[in-house]
């Protein structure tokens, strides 16, 4: 707890107020104290109102005072609320072939624990959504099995009750957005004042309060994704499956959502497993504990498997230099260079990413972008 409090203090000290507010809300939920959570929500609202009015990061003295009060109240809590990971589902060589069409998902095995974030990456039409829908119980599987470890003899209703699936194309909501959130919460057994509190919490946590009184047609597709996540989280699923959740989000929102998902997965209040598919490889790799790369229905890569340990170093760069200049600097026998029209991919058995960058900088090669992709699924694209 002390570490988390220090983390928030650090965020406030460095004026990362948005992050501080979100973390404060998370901690107040984790300690399971309604009064503190209400105060944190009020504090968050104050911040958002202030942000809306001034459109700048400076906040008033009251904000700091309230933050200190909340942090003092949280200081009395120990570390008892940290969650212990439990296995949610074990996927054993599941495969799927559609009756119509010639696509087949080849056998894939994996396991998902609470607090885990698993990223599924791959090109379009290669089986990511099929795999996710099989996990969510939406599609039947042809072979293999899925063991839902936390459920004893579950039927599909129970499975779907505890596993939430957010499709890429989210079905339209009808009525007020806030009513939808209340409805989902109460349908999951969160009733009365607790319902109000949790909906307020979720709106503040995902910074959606300003849009809660609107309806579906009045918000952008990015906000629709966020509202859908809020709705699903209110149902407290054990496993959250998101199909391309970043597709409709801007670059900042992508980062925010991914960070939030990571925190939510590790929440002490309700730890859960999260599986998401995306084309945003680097963003997903940053937050995912495990990444699965699926190509033409086959799982080609899974982080953590010994067979997948990279044997060569790889770096992706964007530069104005030509291929010949790069080879001259790095040595013809040391590297292989591929160009995809925008970026160069430099692979080497001997030179690490740091060595390559050092050589390029030392030879005045201008770089506008570089990324070490040695352990990234990007290598397989």
């Amino acid at each position, binding site marked *: 707890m002390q570490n988390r409090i220090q983390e928030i203090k650090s965020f406030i000290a460095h004026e990362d107020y948005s992050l501080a507010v979100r973390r404060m809300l998370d901690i107040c939920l984790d300690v399971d104290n309604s009064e503190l959570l209400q105060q944190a929500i009020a504090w968050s609202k104050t911040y958002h109102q202030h942000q809306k009015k001034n459109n700048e990061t400076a906040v008033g003295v009251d904000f700091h005072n309230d933050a200190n009060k909340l942090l003092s109240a949280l200081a009395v809590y120990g570390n008892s609320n940290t969650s212990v990971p439990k296995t949610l589902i074990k996927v054993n060589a599941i495969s799927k072939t559609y009756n119509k069409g010639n696509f087949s998902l080849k056998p894939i095995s994996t396991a998902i624990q609470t607090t885990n974030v698993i990223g599924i990456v791959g090109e379009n039409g290669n089986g990511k959504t099929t795999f996710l829908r099989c996990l969510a119980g939406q599609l039947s599987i042809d072979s293999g099995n899925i063991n839902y470890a936390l459920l004893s003899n579950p039927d599909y*209703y129970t499975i779907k009750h505890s596993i939430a699936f957010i499709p890429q194309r989210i079905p339209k909501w009808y009525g007020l957005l806030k009513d939808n959130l*209340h*409805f989902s919460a109460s349908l999951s*057994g969160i*009733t009365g004042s607790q319902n109000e509190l949790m909906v307020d919490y979720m709106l503040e946590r995902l910074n959606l309060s300003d849009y809660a009184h609107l309806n579906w047609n009045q918000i952008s597709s990015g906000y629709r994704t966020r509202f859908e996540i809020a709705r699903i989280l209110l149902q407290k699923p054990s496993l959250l499956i998101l199909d391309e959740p970043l597709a409709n989000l801007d670059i900042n929102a992508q980062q925010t959502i991914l960070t939030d998902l990571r925190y939510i997965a590790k929440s002490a209040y309700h730890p859960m497993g999260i599986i998401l598919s995306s084309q945003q490889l680097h963003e997903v790799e940053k937050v995912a504990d495990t990444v699965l790369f699926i190509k033409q229905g086959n799982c080609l890569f899974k982080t953590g498997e010994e067979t997948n340990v990279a044997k060569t170093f790889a770096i992706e760069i964007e530069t104005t230099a030509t291929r010949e200049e790069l080879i001259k600097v790095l040595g013809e026998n040391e590297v292989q260079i591929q160009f995809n029209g925008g970026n160069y991919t430099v692979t080497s058995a001997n030179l690490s990413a740091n060595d390559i960058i050092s050589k390029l900088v030392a030879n005045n090669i201008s770089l506008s972008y570089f990324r070490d992709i040695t352990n990234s699924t990007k290598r397989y694209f």
Partner: protein
Amino acid sequence: MNWNRPLAPNFLKKFDHNLLLKNPETWSARTHWVWYYGSLFCLLLAGICFVYPNDARSNSGVIYWIFFVSIISILALVFWLIYLLRFNVFKRFGNITGLNRLKVFGLYFASVAMIVFFTYIPAIVETIRANAKYKDEEIVKDINNFNKLVTQLEYDSVDHQWRMDTFIVREEEYGMSDKDKQIIELTEANRKGGFSISRIDSSQFNENIKKGDTIIRLGKAEYEMYSCPNYIKLAVLNADDYTKLKLLDKIGIYRTVVKDFKRPDPKKAREEIDALMQKYYYKEKDRYSRYEYDTYSNSQDTTYEFRVKKRYQIDIVESSLRNIVERKYRFCGNDVEWQFRVLFYISLCFSLLVFAFRHSTTKTFFLSLLTAVILSILTGLLIAFSNGSEKASMTWLITYTLIFFGVSFTAFTSKTRSIFTGICVNLFVLNIPFLPITIVGLYNKIIWDKYYELERMSNYVKHPLYDKYTLPLVYGEMFGIVLLLILLPTLIHKFYRKWFALPQE
């Protein structure tokens, strides 16, 4: 005014919000709003119907009102469905129990019933207005007075001769026994002049006793029946169905007026009857309804009966009284039972459709309806080509329901969600309330046919099975509802829960 929910009081808004937080299934059915706005609309409609000029003596225009209000009801149903379809508690995999499902069905039923009830308002208002203006006993008293006054005033013109019939009660139902022949011969020998003798059986005899004004027994099995002249000029059926004071029949008029006739003061009698005529005289506005009025004006008929009718405007008065009686007793006795059935079955059928729609996919629901239509057509053709009877159609209906029931169980064993199973579950749900009444109907039909067959074979002797014929259909109706209410939270709940959650192929 809040245009989202105009005229909504704060307490109802709070209630609505509380339902949202605590009872999502109740909240999503929107029954509280349907009943609130429905009640407001009923009050408004009732107010309009009260203000609208509507003479109780006129032909009722309630059918036009019903047509007009039916359109509003349909619009209200559509409006309710738009709100209802926004939130579906059954497809979110939330904490829904069997009793929740039953409750939601009840709420759908209550909502539809309220909307259908709109169409009853104009008729109810008409009835209230007619009852307020004309008391039950007043109508009967006026009719009796009218008939008595006409009889008094027309005393000299009426033929007071009683009609006589002679008949013997035969011993055998069919044919004529030697004993019957002897009686006829004896009777003819004892009577003067030629007259016909009717031979009747004991049941006809009992009927004649009821109809005959006086019956004299001549011998062991021979009777003379006397019929009183018809003194009833103004006859209004059912006017005394719900009153202590009864309408005088022709014998009643005979006894009170003719038997000990005292000539009335003609001026006073004429004034009294004029007052009654004025009270019930109503000239219809449209030409079609003014038939009686126009007939009096234009007809060349010079018979006594017509002249009496014209003199006392009997057809017009009778028509007015009939209109009043129709309005007053529209919701009494068998009529109210029939009216309730219309309301009940429309609400039930619509609720079942909405319930099935909310539980299945759109494709499955509409395919279920299509299947029902196709099965009906095919079965109809099959029955027609095989010279089948209503017994065959009832047997098919029962068979289909049992098949749907059997196939519905595959929801428990299937590994994928099959449209076929969904269709069977839907059709089972739609059929189940009507299964018991169909079985009762079929049983009755079988017994009835058997009775006829046995009766024919045993030379028309009444068979004991006859008494078992009428196993009341109402038991079947009631049991159908009970069966639905039992199966909804149990088996049907499980069928839908299992089937909808299954993965797709």
